[in-house]
């Protein structure tokens, strides 16, 4: 009975967002932030959102992104993306979903998903510094030539308190997970105590490196071992976004069980497009819990993607937590508590 009531509460929240969508330009509803879970309202931190500019995305990738917008947003992809990729747009998407705080990602992947600079992300975080944080990144496509300069730029970006970690995506940025040339990034992360988020698994975007050394977290093991002071957050749980399978989930779980500096982030894999029935996300949540890794899971959506995605992904995740037996305390840890502990960011009341 509790479950039914809680899901209903979340769903009503979603309907509020849908109502908002149908009245574009109207102000948000007064639903409090967070989600109700088994009768208790919990804060939510979405640790994975992408701000930026439509023009910072390569043309081939724009086509993929535009094709995912629900009708009629795909007809005006540029305007739709421009609206939701801004700080104001992201805050509006967060409010629709009840998300308390979020982390915005810088990206330097000119061959695949494009560029959102550290400076852009930092400027966005300052629009609502108590709610928005940033992960900095760096270019690696000429790393043999400009490694020291890029690491210095990364260090500089991380000197701002709003920039709380590092974002990497080996598959999008085309560098092997086991290549020691890039280990200086993890060394810096350990020195500054800034966690590293790493895209793991395949990717649907054009130009992505799909071979295992770029996608399989097994190849990160040497770096994880060598830099115990760095926290490694395995994004997407190694999901296979091409065949819509759990992919390298077993490898992620093995690494998290073996190394205390490994964390797990289940974003994107449970979306309507990547997991239509929600069964893969439920399985992932169940298996991580069975493995005793609840204290390592950090919630993220990989939004905003399209209008309503942030809200929808939270709804699907909370549904998966309920379906797989997470207690209130466990859900609180996944949705906000683990993030606050790992990133040393105080939770917003």
């Amino acid at each position, binding site marked *: 009975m509790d479950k039914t009531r809680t899901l209903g509460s979340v769903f009503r929240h979603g309907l509020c967002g849908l109502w908002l969508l149908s009245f574009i330009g109207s102000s948000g509803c007064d639903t409090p932030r967070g989600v109700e879970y088994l009768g208790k309202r919990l804060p939510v931190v979405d640790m994975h959102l992408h701000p930026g500019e439509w023009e*910072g995305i390569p043309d081939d990738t724009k086509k993929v992104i535009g094709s995912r917008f629900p009708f009629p947003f795909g007809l005006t992809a540029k305007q739709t993306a421009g609206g939701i990729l801004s700080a104001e747009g992201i805050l509006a998407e967060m409010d629709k979903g009840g998300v308390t705080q979020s982390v915005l990602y810088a990206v330097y992947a*000119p*061959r695949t998903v494009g*560029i959102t600079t550290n400076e852009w992300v930092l400027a966005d975080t300052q629009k609502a510094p108590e709610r928005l944080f940033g992960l900095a990144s760096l270019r690696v496509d*000429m790393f043999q030539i400009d490694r020291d300069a890029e690491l210095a730029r990364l260090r500089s970006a991380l000197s701002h308190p709003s920039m709380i970690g590092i974002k990497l995506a080996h598959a999008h940025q085309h*560098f092997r997970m086991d290549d020691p040339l890039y280990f200086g990034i993890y060394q810096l992360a350990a020195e500054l105590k800034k966690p590293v988020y790493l895209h793991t698994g395949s990717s649907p975007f054009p*130009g992505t490196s799909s*071979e*295992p050394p*770029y996608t399989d977290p097994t190849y990160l093991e040497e770096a994880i071992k060598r830099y115990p002071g760095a926290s490694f957050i395995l994004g997407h749980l190694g999901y296979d976004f091409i065949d819509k399978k759990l992919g390298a989930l077993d490898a992620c779980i093995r690494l998290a069980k073996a190394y205390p500096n490994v964390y797990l982030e289940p974003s994107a894999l449970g979306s309507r497009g990547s997991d239509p029935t929600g069964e893969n996300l439920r399985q992932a949540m169940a298996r991580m819990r069975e493995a005793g890794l609840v204290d390592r899971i950090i919630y993220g959506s990989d939004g905003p993607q399209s209008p309503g995605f942030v809200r929808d992904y939270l709804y699907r995740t909370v549904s998966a937590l309920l379906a797989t037996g997470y207690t209130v305390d466990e859900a609180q840890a996944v949705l906000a508590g683990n993030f606050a502990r790992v990133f040393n960011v105080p939770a917003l009341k």
Partner: protein
Amino acid sequence: MIEYIYSSRRASPRSIRIAGLVAAAASATGCINDDIELYEARVRGRVAAASPTAITGTLHLQFHHQMSAGRGALAHPLGEIDRRQVAAVTLPVDIDETLLYPTQAGQGLIVYGWLDRDGDGILCAPGQVDEPAGAGRAADFPSHSLTVDLALTQPCAGAERLYP
């Protein structure tokens, strides 16, 4: 209408216009006036390893732009055009591959290769043998006939480690 422009080795570039289905598909998807110009290049050369003893395996070849086009900061080194495999070779071996090179997507040509010694299709999987890789630039590109020799001397190196 999409226009595929194809450059033969002997003639000046000539256009192959593909009407019908392509035009209909282009209209349906809104991809109007996207031109793809393909330049045919025959790449020949020798692939050798540092090892004095003969090593065998499947040769994996990748062809990249030396520099890919992109607006402003979106320009970047490399950018895969095509890839091939040559099974059961013993190094050194001669290669002879014909490539359709998309001219508007970038400039220059880099050839990257590695030898799959254990047959798993993965360059240096954990716990497996080291596998050699190498890359070379086609110095005389653009030309319809190119020579690129590869020395596979770098173990476990992806293309991004060998250029620039």
